[in-house]
């Protein structure tokens, strides 16, 4: 079980300390998928890097814990983390073309993922097997390809193969399809789903596309400016959003029938994500929220439970 408990992360910048993730908590079990949605700058990626222990040097975890089966990863030594990364926790990234090392062959990078965790035998055969598994044609030939000889979708498949090489318990996919063509996106998502199902992995799927999450996740966490605004089972969050932000995100989906029928401009959320160095008082969303009142402007909302859903809002919506 992977548990993030009251996690806060801040960055030291030249303009001062910037708090990027504030008091974030969630739990993920093996075999389940957690979808984290949010705009850019909402702290999704920083959360995943914090879990992996891969935050940049100017970032600091100011409070909280990351528990992996009872072990606090934030207190783990670098060598313990090295063992955990790849073996228990793996991660794939947004841009597969820049995430693979351009100077080494696919085979080298795949085999390295295994040797790093003590696998010594049949490396080549295992690598071929992995490539076959993620749906790469002619895996034997592809082993000696360099990343620049692969298409984006292929490269992401290689990244996935590398991530699952040591059968990790949890996989973090940080915007795994954002850099890919739409047709390839669906294939990669289907592949992730298949792997998750067959290997019983816990999957954290990070995306800005609430449509993707609706398709893939068991549970959804909506992030905004480093806060978890809404968290709950997928159907609750998608069909009965309690938070105005979640509802606005869903309303702006181009695929929705009302939007398609209207054939006009898609609804958008007015305004922009706040400057994290000059956070608004009260609720982080209030400058952009149509329901905001005096309380929202002055007092930060506490997390409250509405049915099965956690909501951080003074004025949670009635399900429609």
């Amino acid at each position: 079980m992977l548990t993030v408990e009251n996690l806060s992360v801040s960055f030291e910048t030249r303009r001062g300390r910037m708090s990027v993730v504030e008091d974030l908590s969630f739990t993920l079990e093996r075999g389940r998928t957690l979808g984290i949605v949010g705009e850019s700058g909402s702290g999704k990626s920083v959360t995943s890097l914090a879990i992996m222990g891969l935050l940049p040097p100017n970032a600091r975890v100011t409070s909280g814990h990351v528990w992996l089966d009872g072990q606090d990863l934030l207190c783990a030594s670098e060598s313990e983390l090295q063992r955990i990364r790849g073996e228990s926790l793996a991660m794939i990234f947004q841009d597969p073309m820049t995430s693979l090392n351009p100077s080494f062959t696919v085979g080298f990078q795949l085999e390295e993922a295994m040797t790093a965790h003590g696998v010594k035998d049949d490396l080549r055969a295992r690598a071929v097997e992995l490539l076959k598994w993620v749906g790469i044609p002619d895996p034997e030939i592809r082993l000696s390809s360099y990343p620049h000889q692969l298409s984006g979708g292929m490269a992401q498949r290689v990244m996935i193969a590398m991530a699952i090489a040591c059968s990790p318990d949890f996989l973090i996919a940080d915007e795994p399809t954002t850099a890919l063509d739409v047709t390839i996106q669906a294939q990669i998502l289907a592949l992730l789903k298949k792997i998750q199902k067959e290997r019983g992995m816990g999957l954290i799927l990070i995306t800005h596309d609430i449509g993707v999450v609706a398709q893939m996740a068991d549970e959804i966490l909506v992030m905004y400016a480093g806060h978890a605004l809404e968290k709950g089972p997928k159907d609750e969050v998608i069909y009965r959003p309690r938070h105005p932000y979640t509802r606005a995100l869903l309303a702006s989906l181009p695929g929705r029938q009302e939007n398609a029928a209207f054939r006009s401009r898609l609804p958008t959320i007015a305004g922009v994500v706040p400057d994290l160095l000059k956070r608004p008082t009260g609720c982080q969303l209030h400058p952009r929220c149509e329901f905001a009142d005096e309380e929202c402007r002055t007092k930060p909302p506490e997390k409250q439970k509405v049915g099965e859903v956690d909501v951080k809002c003074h004025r949670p919506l009635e399900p429609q």
Partner: protein
Amino acid sequence: MIAFLLRRLGVAIPTLIGATVIAFGLIRLVPGDPVLHMIGERGASPEVYAEMRARYGLDRPLTTQYFLFLKNALNGDFGESIVSGQPVWHEFMDRFPATLELGLIALSLAVLIGIPLGVVAAVRRNSLFDYALMSVSLVGYSMPIFWWGLILILFFSVKLGLTPVSGRIDFAYDVPPWSGFLLIDVWKAGEGWPAFKSALVHLVLPAIALGTIPLATVARMTRSSMLEVLGEDYMRTARAKGLSRMRVIFVHGLRNALVPVITVVGLMAGSIVTGAVLTETIFSWPGIGRWLVESVLARDYPVVQSGILLISLAVIVVNLLVDVAYAWANPRLRGRL
């Protein structure tokens, strides 16, 4: 790959022709006359003078002399030294290994010390080590070789008496040339450790003098190239795989950071020759640098023009090798060669 090499060789031809024109032209522009230099200004009658000039073909028009020089060079005949009467080719081959040995050791110093220093500076960016290395390397880069060489001699040879002032090896040892590299030939000659040590201490100061600028350049270049690479996505991927920090930096990082460093090392092959002229003169190192200086002073036209042609050829060959290394380090280029 073969096509690529041939293309690069083709590009090298104009460079070579340019080098011959400049070498041929410059030495003749310099006031002075090789024949006068040899027979002395008061020593001979006009008849002897004219006869000597004719013997070396110096009485013919300049263009004729130039094309004769080119034609002979193409046939592998680089002429004879006016001073010694020896074929230039032999003189070159006698001295070139000494320069090559010195240059290789100097470049190796630069690469073997400069790259690790640059990597550490990049990894510990803005640390005291980083600042110190960058300041020292700036000083190293800016020091004139002749001054630095003299300071080295003054301190290590004169003050401390640790190293000899000149030459390649102690007179006591007789080492017939085999590879031309004394560090190797002493073993072939059966002289053993004492001779090796003697060759080594003779080599140390010139190698430091010649290697300082390349060392500073390599360290700075490695640092900046590594800094760029450290921020790359694939470095994060490598860590996410569970690789050790050392492996991430030295395998995944350095391999990519080396690409621009290789280019710089290649470009330095040319400046090693320039540096060798100064270093060899200061340390009386019997290589082509000192040979050229002496020939220029004696207005030994054939040696200067053919010597520069041969050195240009050597530099071009080194640059070709660097291009090959560059392609090796950068697989994205391999298909396009």
